[in-house]
């Protein structure tokens, strides 16, 4: 105990922590900016070069006949909007991916049920808003109150999802901690099925609904127009909706908070210690079980918040809503290097960008032979490619697997 106190909270440490605070707070912001701008620039360059090459071929001609505009102009005009869209979904993926990555960092275990934790968060948030709507609070709410209600829903979603994640860990994973690697994974798949149908059962016993709809209130659907461009006969507007901004800002805040917690607080240090070595950490006086619970709590809360934000952005949720975003976020976590928080951030942004770019331009570039429907394949193919050349993921450390 004494050793720990000297290590973690002695006066020199305190001063050191104070000096590091601001840097730790701002570092992820810089990273996010770098990743966003970097992937936008790289992907845009690739797409533009492709457009230039294809412009002279039959692809360019076909487009010209159809829309009376050259392929290069078409690409250039659409590019900014595609980048914004890609960034928005990228931050959603990043927020979910953090939950996978935190648990993996500490337990070396893929929490398959995270996508359902996400779904539960979404359901709790939306149910609260629907209740408020029934109560009459939403219609005609002032802008301030609208945001207050949204924050309330997000917090409720976070608490429910966090609590659930802790409970799941306690019941379904902790007894299996020393079993072989496959065992907790199968248990997690079981939890995932169980939770999907629990949501469905609860919903059908109470409301009788399968689809739940995020109520319309506030100014979230409003779209801020950033610019207008003329392309052939049509006008293309460049804009971003308020809800997209909310999604991005909340995701950024969560990521900053998480980064700060893990890298600049005592608890964070304990988490990192447990991630490195359970027995040694417990010898240092850290309650490993508590830290693992805490990891699940934080990961679950992030997932829950992401769930409510997802519902805000995409309006409709159902008990199986978690599956696809979960899968994508999981892919993002692996792409970035699972177990690495910065990696999850990078992976999420890159994946979101990639699939939006691919989905938006593939149809035109292949003359309709392969369109949006291949965007998921595209994401997975890139994942496989990246892993071939960097088996530890984009930012993962090259460490041997723990036995």
């Amino acid at each position: 105990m004494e050793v720990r106190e000297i290590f973690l909270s002695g006066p020199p440490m305190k001063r050191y922590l104070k000096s590091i605070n601001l840097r730790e707070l701002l570092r992820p912001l810089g990273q996010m900016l770098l990743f966003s701008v970097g992937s936008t620039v790289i992907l845009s360059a690739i797409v533009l070069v492709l457009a230039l090459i294809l412009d002279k071929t039959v692809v360019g001609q076909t487009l010209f006949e159809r829309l009376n505009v050259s392929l290069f102009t078409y690409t250039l005009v659409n590019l900014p909007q595609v980048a914004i869209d890609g960034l928005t979904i990228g931050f959603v993926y990043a927020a979910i991916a953090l939950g996978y990555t935190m648990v993996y960092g500490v337990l070396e275990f893929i929490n398959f049920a995270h996508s359902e934790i996400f779904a539960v968060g979404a359901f709790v948030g939306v149910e609260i808003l629907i209740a408020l709507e029934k109560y009459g609070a939403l219609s005609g709410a002032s802008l301030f109150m609208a945001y207050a209600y949204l924050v309330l829903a997000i917090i409720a979603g976070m608490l429910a999802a966090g609590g659930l994640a802790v409970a799941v860990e306690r019941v379904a994973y902790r007894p299996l901690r020393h079993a072989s690697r496959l065992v907790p994974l199968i248990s997690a798949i079981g939890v995932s099925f169980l939770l999907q149908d629990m949501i469905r059962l609860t919903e059908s016993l109470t409301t009788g609904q399968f689809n739940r709809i995020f109520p319309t209130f506030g100014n979230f659907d409003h779209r801020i127009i950033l610019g207008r461009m003329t392309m052939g006969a049509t006008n293309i507007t460049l804009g971003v909706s308020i809800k997209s901004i909310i999604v991005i800002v909340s995701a950024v805040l969560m990521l900053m908070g998480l980064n700060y917690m893990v890298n600049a607080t005592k608890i964070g240090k304990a988490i990192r210690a447990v991630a490195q070595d359970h027995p040694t950490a417990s010898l240092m006086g850290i309650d490993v079980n508590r830290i693992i619970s805490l990891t699940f709590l934080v990961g679950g809360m992030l997932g829950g918040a992401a769930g409510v934000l997802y519902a805000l952005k995409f309006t409709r949720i159902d008990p199986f809503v978690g599956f696809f975003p979960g899968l994508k976020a999981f892919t993002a976590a692996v792409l970035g290097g699972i177990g690495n928080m910065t990696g999850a951030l990078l992976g999420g942004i890159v994946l979101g960008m990639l699939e939006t770019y691919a989905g938006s331009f593939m149809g035109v570039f292949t003359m309709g032979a392969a369109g949006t429907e291949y965007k998921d394949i595209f994401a997975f193919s890139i994942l496989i490619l990246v892993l071939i050349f960097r088996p530890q993921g984009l930012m993962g450390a090259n460490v041997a697997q723990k036995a």
Partner: protein
Amino acid sequence: MTKRLLVVLSLLLTAGMAIGSQVSAADKVIKIATQSPLSGDQSAVGVDIKRGAELALEQLGGPLTKMGFKLELAPFDDQANPDTGVANAKRIVSDPAILAVVGHFNSGVQIPSSEVYHTSGLVNVSPANTNPKVTTRGYLEVDRIVGRDDVQGVVGADFAAAHKVKSVFVVHDKTAYGQGIAEFFKQRAQEKGMKVLGFEGTEEKANFDSLLSPILAGNPDLVYFGGMYPQASVLFKQARERGYLGMFLSDDGYDSADAVKIGGQSLLEGTGTFYSTVSGPAAVYPGTKKFIEDFKAKFNAAPQPFAAQGYDSMGISLKAIEDAAKANHNKIPTREAVAKAVRALNDYHGITGNFTFNGIGDPTIAKYFVMKVNSADPAKWNDNPVVQTLDIAPPK
């Protein structure tokens, strides 16, 4: 250890079976099975097909009950999976009390399962399978009450042509249902001289951003969606948010009050939102309104698309069994007689149409209504006005 475990296991299983296996052996029992996905992510529609059928059994079973039969519903869950569907089908045909099957949401399940019904002579009235192959195999036992893909796609395109639409962008949900309709819509639209700016399928349920870029770049007069409302409405809403002001058109998978709950006011903006459906207004089919009210009263939820078709499929099965039983001196008829009785029905008045079947089991004339979404209030969904009525016979 192993052995003891095995013993325990078999005991447990047998105990489970003991419950499941008792079948009432009364000889006057007639059962009608339903097969639809009751679990998994397609259960919303699947459950309501079953509920529609359940309601019909309750309301329309009177004549048979009076003849002294006891009617029972035997609901099966095909899990939207062909393997489960076929296994259930074999279980169904091995129960002699079952005289008809209402069923299947997915054509991918209906086609292999109906091979089983066909070999056993059991009639299958389909409430939702639009794939032409369902009936073109020419089985006596397979009938359907929905329009085929090549009927409803044509309805949509004809409506668009009547409204002077010059350019369309076609989207579908990559299911047999949605893609089938969309293919025929596209074909017909091109015949009618419309410019098809794009034809895209997507399994995406939430984020349509990457699909919207090409749509907005082409700025078509009409966006057609082949598929179900949970996707369609989200797409429409996002398109409006991005500033698209043209017309939206979808199919009978869009006919649910939830569609407007998702889309809200945005569906009414611009040139508006339309959908083709067989569930007509109260003036044409007085049963429809009552059905929706009864359904809400019994199940505490508004019916999903195809619930009404589930109701009608059951109604047709019951009527056919009644006819066949009467012909058989009020005794339980053979399965073959029931199958023939379905084909022999003349102008059965249901809530989604008046049905007479042709030689391969398609309704001779499909009456389609194109409706306009008229209010952002889900409670007023049933007051949506008819914009156009089209009668189309299926291709031979």
